[in-house]
């Protein structure tokens, strides 16, 4: 198992290198001169040329990339071109907010979505099944920014229960987590229901019932256990997609996380910040996938993790 984990972690290196190289090339192809963004419109051509040289923009692209990666290997993620701050400490400051937001969203989505999916599957074609599907449809269809705005108006302005933005306390994370989790909840609910229904129709479930197992045992030990594999995969994918979803949620709720950092950096062509953020996201998604695979093996003894 340890060998397997190590191998998977090592495989992350070429993945990260590939992603970073593509992004590096794309950022360089994009219009917008970083020197102008930094020095402003009053800068002279000489000052701009000097700034480009200082940033290494006058060197060949591949050389720039190699220098950046060598820096990263030494723990130097560079300095923000626009803000002037060091990228690594900035991450360490922001990552907890994003992970907290993602974790709370996933927690809320799973704790509501999975049980609802199970109930909907057990009570197929019952009122609760239709109600759950309708809820999933609504949550899945609503744009998150609209959902966020309506939540702010209702809970912050009308009822005055929650703060509208910021990160001062856990209460600040309630609305953002619901907003980010709504979409995930819908997909968890649907995935659990579909997966459970697939398993319910299997012969071994009929056999279990024929043997005289009570319904609770059939559901918990036979249906749920076998139906959880796709759900676990979905959790992994959803957690990774939280990183993307957090861009909008963090912007709307003024949460100083990775998402809001990334969007501002992209707007300002702040290459070191964009690169650093994407390296983090790539590693994060890789690790989440690894954890999902480990959980697979825990749930299903047929799955063997071999290097």
């Amino acid at each position, binding site marked *: 198992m340890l060998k397997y984990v190590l191998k998977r972690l090592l495989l992350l290196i070429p993945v990260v290198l590939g992603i970073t190289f593509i992004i590096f090339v794309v950022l360089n192809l994009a219009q917008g001169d970083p020197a102008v963004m930094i020095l402003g419109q009053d*800068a002279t051509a000489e000052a701009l040329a000097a700034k480009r040289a200082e940033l290494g923009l006058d060197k060949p692209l591949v050389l720039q990339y190699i220098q950046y990666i060598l820096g990263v290997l030494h723990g130097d993620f560079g300095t923000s071109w*626009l803000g002037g701050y060091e990228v690594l400490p900035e991450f360490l400051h922001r990552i907890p907010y994003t992970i907290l937001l993602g974790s709370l969203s996933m927690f809320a989505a799973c704790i509501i979505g999975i049980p609802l999916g199970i109930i909907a599957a057990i009570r197929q074609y019952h009122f609760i099944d239709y109600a759950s599907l309708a809820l999933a449809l609504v949550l899945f269809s609503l744009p998150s920014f609209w959902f966020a705005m309506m939540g*702010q108006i209702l809970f912050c302005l009308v009822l005055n229960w929650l703060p509208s933005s910021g*990160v001062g306390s856990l209460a600040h994370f309630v609305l953002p987590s619901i907003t980010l989790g709504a979409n995930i909840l819908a997909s968890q609910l649907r995935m659990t229901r579909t997966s459970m229904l697939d398993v319910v129709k299997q012969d071994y479930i009929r056999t279990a019932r024929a043997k005289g197992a009570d319904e609770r045992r059939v559901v918990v030990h036979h249906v749920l256990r076998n139906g959880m594999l796709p759900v676990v995969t979905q959790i992994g994918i959803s957690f990774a997609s939280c990183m993307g979803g957090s861009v909008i949620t963090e912007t709307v709720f*003024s949460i100083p996380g990775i998402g809001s950092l990334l969007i501002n950096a992209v707007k300002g062509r702040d290459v070191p910040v964009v690169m650093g953020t994407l390296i983090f996201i790539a590693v994060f998604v890789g690790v989440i996938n690894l954890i999902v695979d480990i959980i697979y093996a825990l749930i299903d003894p047929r799955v063997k993790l071999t290097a």
Partner: protein
Amino acid sequence: MKKNLRKTLALFLAGTLSFVLLSACTGDTPSSSNAGSSQTPAGSSEAPGGARDSATLATSGEPTRFFPCGAEGSNGNDYLVLNNIYDTLVFLDPDGTLKPCLAETWSVSEDGLCYTFNLRGGVKFHDGSAMTAEDVVYTFDLSVQNSTGKALIINYDHAEAVDDSTVKIYLTDPYAAFLNGCASRAGGIISKAYYEQVGADGYQKAPIGTGPYQFVSAVSGDTITLKAFPDYWNGEAAIKNVYIKTMTDASTQIIALENGDIDAIRSPAISSCLNLNEASGATWASGDSAGRVTLHISSNKGQPGENTDFRKAVQYAINKADVILGATEGYATRIDIDMCPSYSGHPEGYKVVERDTEKAKEYLASSGYQNEEFQIIVETGTVSDTAAQIIQSQLMEIGINCTVNAVDTPTFNDMWYAGTYGGMIRNTSSSLLDADGFLNFFMATEANYAQTLNNQHARTKEIYDLGMEARKAQGDARKELYLQMVDICTDEAYEVPLFASTSTMAYRADLQGVKIYPLGVVYFYDWS
């Protein structure tokens, strides 16, 4: 064995999640650029006796530059910090008049080449040291070492400290708006001793000035905290703690204001202000801005505007009243020259072109226009964007194949500098609030400004020469030169000035003393 392994792994995963949750909850992680806690203010608070002692202002862009003499460009967001931490020799009032600040009095030599400032006594920096004439000389010498400072402190030659409280600043050539430059962010006085000790980076991390507010902390992406300086020369500020909060989403800003989570919003859109629910205790104010929104028509080779008659056709086809109504709900002042009415040196009696579609069609016919694409570039999501769409329909009415290309700021700048546009709508501001700002767009290549390398109209040099002459002239002579410059632009239809944009502020109605400054600056010292 297997069960144990599973339990261990399950515990490990649960532990990791808990750790993450707890570490995020503490929120007391180190800030990137500056030390400080991520304590978030909960709206306004009141001191004993009912007086307000703190205020939270939301801004859509994060202030990042805290050192006034740096080479990096700064914008209105940075001014939120710079203008409250640093005092300047003279102060530019909302109505454009210059008032004493660190200089109690000043005089100008007859030839306009020497400015003498008599400094106020007893002024202290935030570290307790006294401000002297040496600090003033040092600040100016440092500011003009980079091109951004040079663009504000124009024609500076050198300065000398006559004694502890008198400074003489010498210019290479007279410059009528020199005092406006002294009132700009590049004139924010820094401490020589502190700078020599910590350097530019240290100053950026822990800035000190002589202003009414001291820097406390900056938590990136979140809040910048300032506190009133007790030894401020003009008396301690009424609002003791100021929180500048970065809130990028406009709707969230409004909800937070109506909810009472924040006390003010810097420069909200007019449409947001008009929809403000005043019953919630929120209100808004507007005033003249230093920005003017103008359509610049390229006369570069290969562009439709290469032909003068085509440019004239565009000039006559535009209905400015409709543009103003559509882009600003009517809350803007029409302009016919590329200057705001509030600029010093603003001329009078200039030529004005009114909409005349028949004339526009005649000019278009005589231009030999063959339905080529006339592409107007704008920065996406701005008032210029809306204005461009209205202009597009007006130009299509007379048969011009007009398209609008709304792009992000870096792309916009690239296209502008490369000259790859037919027309361009910009919201241009003058940091000096002076007619000289008009010249920026016509700086000749000898000045080597990147922004103008591709803005070479046939008469650019003529306009540039007049502008350089106007810099030296005073009074009516100066206005006469500006008049000639703007009339050339109108005759040649190089540009169609549309409107002077509006500065806005939305705030809680119980916040007293809110003033609207043309540059969108906020002086928390005014508030109570």
